[in-house]
């Protein structure tokens, strides 16, 4: 992978201020929603982003899309720092990075026909498809996502959840993007329909060379579709690496807890060793000192309470734990590689 990443984040941070700033007196609270996030997404690759609710997955996505301005750091598209762009120049980039949303019920305008939903972007970017070819292109796109070209004049309410998600995918593809940010694209779908949409996303990636930033809380789905995985906890990436390596030998105790908590559809494995986390994610307004994970960590030592762990690298994986690589978690994840 010597080529330039299509999308890159460098030391990206986002703070949200809570409450109004006062003229005098104390600073308002800030929430460090995203702290020091680095990633490099290459064409044709998928990075999975996992973590519990409130860990900063969506904040990171919004900052990468520049829907919110980051507090510091860089977002690079094809090597260029897009934060330097003016809002107008930013618009030209929007076609290259599209989004597929979680809820196929609320993300499609109920008063728009499928044709209008798919072709709306061409009003902003008229040069993508000449007006004379638009009807044909809508039909092509519908065919590409496994819908019937005759569906173009129907409305969202006439479709099932899975079909609506296909319409959302067609809408994203209409602008011929290089990157698609998938925000929990299958979590609202039934199991039997989920597999269809996952297969569709994988096929489109192969055919069109798309890069995906794939946000999900379902680790099995992330495992299936991703090349790399980033695990976030309280705004930081605590572990990052090729998905096979991270899932086979996680080095951050939080990753271990997430992986071992996933219910396995095999009754023979129900008595396996599970690392159960006590408590819940602490409030980001007043995060614990030292390693933010230490209050829930069974292996926490004094250093964890006092010092924020620096990233530790082994090969291609990174873990922010003082003891990364020194702890043996094989008992908790053995079932992931043996079955």
């Amino acid at each position: 992978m010597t080529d330039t990443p299509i999308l890159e984040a460098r030391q990206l941070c986002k703070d949200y201020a809570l409450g109004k700033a006062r003229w005098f007196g104390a600073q308002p609270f800030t929430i460090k929603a995203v702290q020091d996030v680095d990633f490099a997404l290459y064409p044709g690759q998928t990075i999975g982003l996992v973590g519990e609710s409130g860990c900063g997955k969506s904040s990171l996505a919004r900052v990468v899309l520049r829907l919110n301005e980051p507090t510091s750091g860089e977002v690079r598209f094809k090597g260029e720092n897009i934060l330097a762009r003016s809002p107008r120049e930013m618009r030209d980039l929007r076609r290259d990075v599209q989004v597929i949303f979680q809820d196929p019920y609320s993300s499609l305008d109920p008063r728009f026909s499928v044709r209008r939903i798919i072709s709306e972007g061409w009003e902003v970017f008229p040069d993508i498809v000449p007006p004379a070819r638009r009807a044909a292109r809508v039909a092509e796109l519908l065919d590409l996502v496994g819908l019937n070209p005759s569906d173009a004049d129907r409305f969202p309410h006439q479709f099932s959840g899975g079909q609506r998600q296909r319409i959302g995918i067609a809408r994203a593809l209409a602008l011929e993007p290089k990157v698609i940010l998938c925000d929990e694209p299958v979590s609202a779908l039934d199991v039997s329909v989920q597999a269809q949409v996952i297969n569709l996303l994988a096929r489109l990636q192969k055919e069109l060379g798309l890069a995906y930033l794939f946000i999900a809380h379902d680790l099995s789905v992330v495992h299936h579709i991703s090349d790399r995985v980033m695990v976030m906890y309280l705004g930081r990436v605590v572990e990052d690496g090729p998905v096979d390596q991270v899932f086979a030998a996680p080095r951050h105790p939080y990753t271990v807890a997430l992986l071992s908590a996933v219910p396995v559809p095999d009754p023979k494995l129900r008595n396996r060793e599970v690392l159960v986390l006590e408590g819940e994610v602490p409030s980001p307004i007043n995060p614990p000192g030292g390693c933010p994970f230490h209050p829930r960590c069974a292996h926490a030592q004094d250093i964890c309470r006092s010092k924020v762990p620096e990233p530790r690298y082994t090969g291609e994986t990174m873990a922010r734990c003082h003891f990364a690589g020194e702890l043996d978690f094989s008992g908790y994840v053995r079932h992931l590689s043996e079955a």
Partner: protein
Amino acid sequence: MATDIRTAAPKGQTEALLDVRDLKVSFQTPHGPVNAVGGVSWTLAPGETLGIIGESGSGKSVGLEAVMGLIKSPPGHVSGEILFDGHDILKMSARKRRALRGDEISMVFQDAMSALNPSLTVGAQISEVYHLRRGCSRDEARRKAVELMDRVKIPSARMRLDAYPHEFSGGMCQRVMIATALALDPRVLIADEPTTALDVTVQRQIMALLSELQRETGMALVLITHDLGVVAEVARRAMVMYAGRIVESGDIETLFDAAAHPYTRGLIRSMPRIDTRGGELYSIGGTPPAAGQMPPGCAFHPRCPHAVEMCRATLPLLQATGKDAHLSACHLTGKLDND
């Protein structure tokens, strides 16, 4: 009208606590009556954990709401028999049924945040049960509420008694709802997707809590879910529902290792598993039929790769597969390869 063979508890267990016979639920709609549950029969033994698996619209929730007496009539219509301890619930007076709810059978819902009353404190909602049903004084009821919150492991229960639901996390709200359901020591707890809206780590905590409470009190648990993983981890026996009917039932090992019905097999195969990766996922084509648009014959035949002429014409009934208490509603039971 043909009646399915009943899916009975395995031999050696005591008599059924709950015995549902040919339960049908239909709703009057402007487009004519819609059958949500089309004749299901099952039993629940004391202390047992029964899983009910199904996708949205399969009738899994509606069937259990009928057991709880939550179907409003009209527009709903419930027929068949629901025997609790030998007495038909459907023939009881409203007063008697009310006494049964909470005292004997209780229910926990999916979205705890919206199932709780946002304008009442958590303490008020739990202690209300004791006040109304046991005639406890307010102080007594509050004291019992604290005990109950301790039992469902809500930290610093006494202090949080006067907090409102919005001050609780999703997992804590679910604990509050479990507490209200358990207040009167029911013998049956129906849990409808109790962990679906929660993160995996919290899901694991709630499932562990339910199992622990079940061990302590000896209550039976009916777990409604679409997540095969959750069922595999906690249930001893499960039923699979499709389009308002039970298509397969049996003990959990048999269902996962030797599923007989093509739908169950498809569901199991289409799950992305955390222990395998890559390649195309198996997927069941098409979507589940909409209520009111049931195909003739076997409701699954339009999506079934094995469908033959008979499947399009005749409704298959549950029949024994030869294994102990394993039933499947498929014309081709025993004739399909074990792939």
